[in-house]
């Protein structure tokens, strides 16, 4: 699952999709993940980094990751 190429993100969590004109706000961890996705990191790489940095169970993160993906999909931010 890759982020669409032209999606603009800002450090403070603002997201803009120039193709649709939609804008989004995100929480800090979402902004961080988006940045990592833009940097081309794989999902397992990103998850490993999050587990390292945050106080979260692997199982919980796994579940939230699925939800995260569906949020991005619903928001039309992923490559088809």
């Amino acid at each position, binding site marked *: 699952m890759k982020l669409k190429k032209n999606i603009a993100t800002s450090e403070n969590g603002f*997201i803009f999709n120039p193709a649709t004109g*939609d*804008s*989004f*706000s*995100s*929480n*800090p*961890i*979402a902004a961080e*993940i988006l940045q990592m996705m833009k940097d081309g990191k794989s999902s397992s790489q990103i998850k490993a980094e*999050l587990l*390292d*940095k*945050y*106080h*979260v169970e692997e199982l*919980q*993160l796994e579940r*939230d990751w699925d*939800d*995260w993906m*569906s*949020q*991005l999909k*619903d*928001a039309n931010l992923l490559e088809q």
Partner: protein
Amino acid sequence: MITQKLIYERPFIKKMNAGLMNKFGTRTEFQALKYIDGVSVKSLLAEYGSPVFVLSEKQIRRNYQNAVRSFKTRYPKVQFAWSYKTNYINAVCNVFHQEGSWAEVVSGFEYRKALGNGVPGNKIIFNGPDKHPEDILLAIKNDSLLHIDHFDELYSLIELCDTQDKKPRVAIRVNMDTGVYPIWDRFGFNYENGQAWNAITKIIGSGKLKLVGLHCHIGTYMLATSAYAIAASKLCELATNCKNQLHTPIQYLDLGGGFPSTNTLRGAYLPGVDTVPSVDDFAEAITSTILAHGFKQDELPLLILESGRVLIDDAGYLLGTVLANKRLSDGRRATIMDFGVNILFTAFWYEHKISPAQDFTHHSEDMVLYGPLCMNIDVVRESVNLPLLNRGDNVVVHKVGAYNMTQWMQFISMRPNVVMIDEKGNPHLIRKAETLGYLEMQEETPTHLKSINL
């Protein structure tokens, strides 16, 4: 070296639709509610389980005293009668009775509950279309106030009196056009078409009943004070006619209940707190009408009120726990709670305010709140903006004191504990959670169905 990991929050994005923001917002829902009357929500949940209803004795007394003050500062003779159906747990009823409230009941079992609580028979008002002969006889014996609902009841009451040496004290319930529609005309005798007057003349003509009062209950969650002014004026008119034409002075006017609590009705544009008139406003409308009607000072009727929801809704809380989060096929977030419409009946009427019971980050999300029942109608809130909630988090539902603890159903899950926090901040269990044993106590299994062999 051990490094401290950062606090985790699930990643989340939210579409920003400029111009469509709800101007009135739901900011108040963004405050954690951690204490009720000084008792921690978490400790209540730990002690009494989840979900659990919590009532504040202090708030009930405050509501009652404020309502009484609103009327007594405007009118010399005022009496409240607690509407049992609104919440008939004995501890609740007795708070009202300690404050001086009579009882208003609508069934034989409610009537006996009031007697059991120690309410003198002559301070019980017996309303409703379904009074059984044995209940009526008991009420006559106790000199209770029988509010007659329809002609069939009136005729059978007159018949019953043949076997009694006591003259029952009665009133009639009157329904009428108060400018609020639909008219609740299924209860009582209609004013405009002359039915009410007809009933009055029959009662007095029978010589067997003592007509002492006139009653109406024009609706519930009424938003127009003008409707009460009209109702009061029509009852006054009837009372004057009773005195002048039938030489029967009326001792009391009972204006029923119906004042709204500050809950927000489903689909309402503005929150209830900002829109509903206060008890003071209703008191002003009612008392100024009666005072202006021209009763002689010593003939002013007693004013009775049967308020229910306005006296207890905001004293009740439902504490519960998040069971799960999921995303619906259309992308909306859904949160499943451990309480549903089986115990939160008023979710059908109200957009109940819901607060998290713990700290949260400033991000929030629109979501549907579901109960745990296996059925589609089990929706606690169709759409509510709340901070991100995780499995195991607790929430507090506000203003649930009226009607839930009487209209609740034992369906799929059982009725939970009910706790009352006294004025000193001590919690008391006032109704135990139901158990399988309690449930099956009422069942009888025929012998041939006692054993199975699978």
